């Protein structure tokens, strides 16, 4: 149990509760993610992957069921406590709108630390520089998002997701908008971070080639984890 980063127990999610359009999108999801695991989440469009990732990322609450982050039940936490926990334990990589355009690449990587500490000290800038070097973009630190390719932006986004040294990075189709070569590069970067630093990853992808390089593949179909999926890839 001690090496569990995430545990979902009988998680259900309904949208539009109480309205005629009420729909249950996730049904009784049980899922355990151990420390250092790299998990691929696959499944057809509309099957509920993003919904699941939003719940895992503590951006959304389940309609029923329990979520434990490193053994702590988040169901009883208030908004402020959840925000703090999210900032410190979970990193985010999105499919679109990768960086905040008002900031340079380096500043984007600084933002999570800046929001947490309140002031941009030299330690924050130094760590952001290190992370930029780690994703191979130290030369692009001063660039704005619009002056970088999609693959470069996504690498910066990975660096930003790692800024607070999270236990888990959740990435929703991080390579969905990238060409094959860039997609491969970004994926390999995440895999490398996972191997070197032990950060757990939960990555949604439609790319079977990439998924096969993960520790496990989970398939979501119609809001349920397909029985039998989840074995070692």
């Amino acid at each position, binding site marked *: 149990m001690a090496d569990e980063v995430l545990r979902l127990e009988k998680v259900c999610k309904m949208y539009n509760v109480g309205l005629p359009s009420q729909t249950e999108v996730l049904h009784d999801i049980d899922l355990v993610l151990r420390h250092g695991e790299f998990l691929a989440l696959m499944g057809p469009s509309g099957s509920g992957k993003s919904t699941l990732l939003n719940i895992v990322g503590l951006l959304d609450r389940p309609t029923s069921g329990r979520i434990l982050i490193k053994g702590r039940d988040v169901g009883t936490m208030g908004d402020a406590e959840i925000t703090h926990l999210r900032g410190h334990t979970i990193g985010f990589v999105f499919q679109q709108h990768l960086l905040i355009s008002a*900031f340079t690449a380096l500043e984007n990587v600084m933002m999570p630390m800046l929001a947490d500490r309140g002031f*941009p000290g030299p330690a924050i800038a130094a760590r952001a520089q290190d992370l930029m070097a780690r994703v191979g973009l130290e030369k692009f630190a001063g660039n704005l998002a619009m002056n970088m390719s999609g693959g470069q932006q996504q690498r910066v986004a990975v660096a930003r997701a790692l800024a607070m040294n999270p236990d888990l990075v959740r990435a929703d189709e991080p390579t969905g908008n990238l060409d094959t070569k860039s997609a491969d590069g970004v994926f390999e970067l995440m895999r490398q971070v996972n191997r070197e630093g032990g950060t757990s990853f939960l990555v949604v992808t439609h790319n079977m080639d990439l998924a096969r390089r993960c520790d496990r593949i989970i398939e979501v179909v119609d809001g349920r984890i397909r029985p039998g999926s989840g074995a070692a890839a």
Partner: protein
Amino acid sequence: MNRWLPFEWITAVRFLREGRLQTLFIVSGIAIGVGVIVFMSAMLAGLEANFIKRVLTSQPQIQLQPPDQIARPLRSGPGEIEDAIIQRPSQRIISIDQWPKIREHLLAMPEVRAVSPTIAGSALAVRGDASRSVSISGVEPASYFQIVRIPEYIVAGEPRLTSEDILIGTELAKDLGATVGDKLNIRAASGPTRVLTVTGLFDLGNKGANQRNTYIALRTAQSLLGMIGGVTTIDVTIADIFAAETFARQIQASNVVQADSWITTNAQFFTAVQAQKTSNTLIRLFVGLSVAFGIAAVLIVSVIQRSKDIGILRAMGTSRGQILRVFLLQGGLLGFVGSLFGSAAGAGALVYWHSVLRQADGSEFFPLILEQRLFVATAVLATLTGLLAAMAPALRAANLDPVAAIRG
């Protein structure tokens, strides 16, 4: 990033800088509003200050006089009036009863700045064949000149008033062909005559006053007017000129005198100023409101445009409070920066008008008064307006559902 600036400040400034054109337009809008307010307020303050200065250096703030002499109706018994027609008696010139006591009483009050007993009457000024009727004010120069700044109006000679001296106006000097150092015969209506030396000529900026007003020493006037030891008025100056009316009522209540403040004697002016102030306040209010709505509109649009940024910031651990403050700050900053440009523009326009607008004789139309206070107050008010206007957009940003924001 400046290491001394907090997250909220850095983010707010970046968002404003990135939204260049929006920011430029709304700052211009605020600047125009603030400029109009600054220009109007400063001009109005100038005109008012000009008038008040003119009034208060040539008139006492409060003037005490003996109470009106009234005729009491004859009564034969309680409630029965013998003669129903009451004629107002002619008002003799009489002295204020026990005036030294009143003066002591006034001087003991902390808000009183100066008290000057004077005696007024009329006389004939004669020089050679020329004679003119004049009004005489007998004054103690030390205290009187604190109230009515005769020395500031002296155009020839000096404001000296020993018992043999007289100060006359420029018009009277012309009429009598007299100048500084000449002697005049002053003959009071009741008979006695004194020979006095002209020590100074003054120009009060009013032809009638320059023709009729003369100033002599209090004692000289008392003997000339046959009222040894008496005074007809006591002039008073207090610290707060706008409290003059209230103070006058207080004095009248506790002394047997008639007290009039400059506020009642210049009632017309005050009605005009009050009307101006009311319309000025209304204009400020509406300009402030339209500025506030402008800021709110721009920020609401910005919240919608930036909803993904907000979603990402929330995902990476930024609290609702931080997002709220980022947008409040944007409102405050817009207000503040707009007020700086607006103040500069308003002041510039005022300086320009001041140099262009001249009266017929080439003198200034209004005095240029640019008080630091006005600019500080404007900046503070504009900043507060911005903060307040940002409230609704900021709340909206803070309560944005990050899931919807990121998906959308």
